[in-house]
């Protein structure tokens, strides 16, 4: 069997396993795996930027949160909105913000890029935090779960755990396949070229800015999809969705899974969620469980110190190498 055939077989097996999971997992299990799959989509959006285009974005939570807010705010007070226009509206909001944020931040490189994306996401955070539009610090509730149907006939009741589980699974598979196709396309190869050596790409006649901006907006759209699903799942949004903890968490997920391939993002999202849940266990940590951040923090430090290649292995791509000449020199040391 060729490597590609093996990859496809593993992918199909994983998708089947997830599809069969609700038969054995209880209510809690289904809910938890749904959350992990939403975060897997979120992590995939960041993997496109960090792992494929070499842009270390530390403001991914902004797109997630903006789409979640848009989902809630665009739902009418009188009844359920149709997914067919609510989802595009949510994606439109996050895509527009990604266009604005990307157009400005892509002008910068390396450390600057990290800080600028963080600062812009904090800007979004403070808008939600300080203005009464989205309920301020308290957040707002989604009154009606969006309806999914064709010509008035309902297809799936997204308010119920099981149908929603399959809806999220279908989205995850679709995003994975879509991003895989993107990366195999000419556009994906251009991104890889930019990651490895942007100067050379420019010399070869590529105007790199539009490629990076397109990747940024695409990433914002995918993160927006995750935000939409999250809002529908929880039925509640608050400013913390855009907090930098969320950006840090999703960055941690892709590192943990291993940067440089899409499967790393999915594995990382699952592994990190399980790790978090483990540190929250009362039965293991007792009263200490409420300080679960400490465990996560120590795990992150240990992970950076000991496993620079992530769980899924693979080569460590020098994600920012092409973006800082300075870093290049610095890394030249044996």
């Amino acid at each position, binding site marked *: 069997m060729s490597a590609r055939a093996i990859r496809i077989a593993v992918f199909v097996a994983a998708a089947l396993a997830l599809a069969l999971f609700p038969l054995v997992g209880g209510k809690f299990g289904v809910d938890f795996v749904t959350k992990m799959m939403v975060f897997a989509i979120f992590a995939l959006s960041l993997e496109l930027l*960090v792992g494929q285009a070499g842009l*270390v974005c*530390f403001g991914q939570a902004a797109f997630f949160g903006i789409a979640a807010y848009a989902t809630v705010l665009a739902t009418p007070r009188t009844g359920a909105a149709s997914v067919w226009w609510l989802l595009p509206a949510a994606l439109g909001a996050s895509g527009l913000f990604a266009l604005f944020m990307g157009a*400005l*931040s892509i*002008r*910068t490189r*390396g*450390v*600057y890029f*990290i*800080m*600028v994306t*963080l*600062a*812009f996401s*904090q*800007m979004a955070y*403070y*808008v939600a*935090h*300080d*203005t009464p539009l989205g309920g301020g610090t308290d957040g707002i509730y989604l009154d009606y779960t969006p309806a999914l149907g064709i010509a008035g006939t309902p297809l799936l009741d997204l308010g119920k755990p099981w149908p929603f589980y399959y809806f999220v699974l279908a989205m995850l598979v679709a995003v994975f396949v879509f991003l895989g196709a993107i990366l195999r396309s000419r556009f994906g190869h251009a991104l890889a070229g930019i990651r490895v050596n942007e100067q050379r790409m420019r010399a070869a006649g590529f105007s790199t800015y539009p490629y990076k901006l397109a990747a940024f907006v695409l990433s914002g759209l995918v993160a927006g999809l995750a935000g939409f699903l999250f809002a529908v799942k929880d039925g509640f949004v608050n400013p913390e969705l855009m907090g*930098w903890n969320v950006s*840090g968490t999703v*960055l*941690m997920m892709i*590192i943990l899974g291993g*940067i440089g391939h899409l499967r790393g993002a999915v594995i990382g999202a699952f592994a990190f969620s399980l790790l978090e849940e483990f540190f929250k266990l009362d039965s293991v940590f007792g009263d200490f469980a409420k*300080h679960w*951040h*400490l465990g*996560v*923090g*120590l*795990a*992150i*430090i240990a*992970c*950076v*110190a000991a496993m*620079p290649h992530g769980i899924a292995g693979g080569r460590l791509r*020098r*994600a*920012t*190498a092409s973006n*800082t000449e*300075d*870093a290049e*020199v*610095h*890394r*030249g*040391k044996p």
Partner: protein
Amino acid sequence: MDLATFLVQCLNALQYGLLLFLVASGLTLIFGVMGVINLAHGSFYMLGAYMAYALAPAFANLGGLGFFATLAAGVVLAVVFGYLLEWAFFSFLYERDHLQQVLMTYGLILVFEELRSLAMGDDVHGVAAPAWLSGSIPLGTLMAYPVYRLFISGVCVLLALGLYAVISRTRLGMMIRAGASNREMVSSLGVDVRQLFRVMFAAGVALAALAGMLAAPVSSVYPGMGNQVLIICFVVVVIGGIGSIRGALAAALLVGAVDTFGKVFFPQAAGVLVYVLMALVLLWRPGGLFKAT
């Protein structure tokens, strides 16, 4: 707005800007010279504020000098802490890429926050300004300005001047400036770069902690206070240009003014104005106002 109100706001803007400068100067030096992006820098500010709260009772019997004793003890502790921290966590980050630095320092923030929560609880604490600094100076007929805020500005100006003197006039400053422009070259010229980094890191931690200690009586001491300062300091560093002390000073004063007057004129949008300022600067000069090369 009458003249007295305007003057009070100007003084507030100056005081806030100078305080930001203390935190941002360490941050920009650690970026510029060591090439490390340190998200945990805000935690040092928080550490300082909590030290001001926790150490004050120990020096209470010294009367008026107790405040200075607290500051001195806090700075010494911060230097030792910074030195050890650099040795344990940061010294092996130099050869890693920015992504790993972000993660490591992000993990440190989580750890510091939880340790703080374990050691001091999650309550908001007030810290009293020393008695001899707690008065106010009358401005016009209706307004008064607290002496302690003037004291903060004064200390910050002295420290800024001191920092300027060290950076521009001493051998250490020369090595730091050289390190900011070309690390490899400085190292090949026989400077012990590791030691230089460690000292600089400790100094940066001490400056941030000192800022936290000075701010504690004004802002009180609360969980998560470091992160708020950190993000604003990122904006300051980005506007000023990474590695530039002058840039950090100019940007800190600018951010202080925009934030303070923003709260007066546009209270609804105050939180966003600073970021709008950053976006405008980036459009105009992507490398910051004073790009250090």
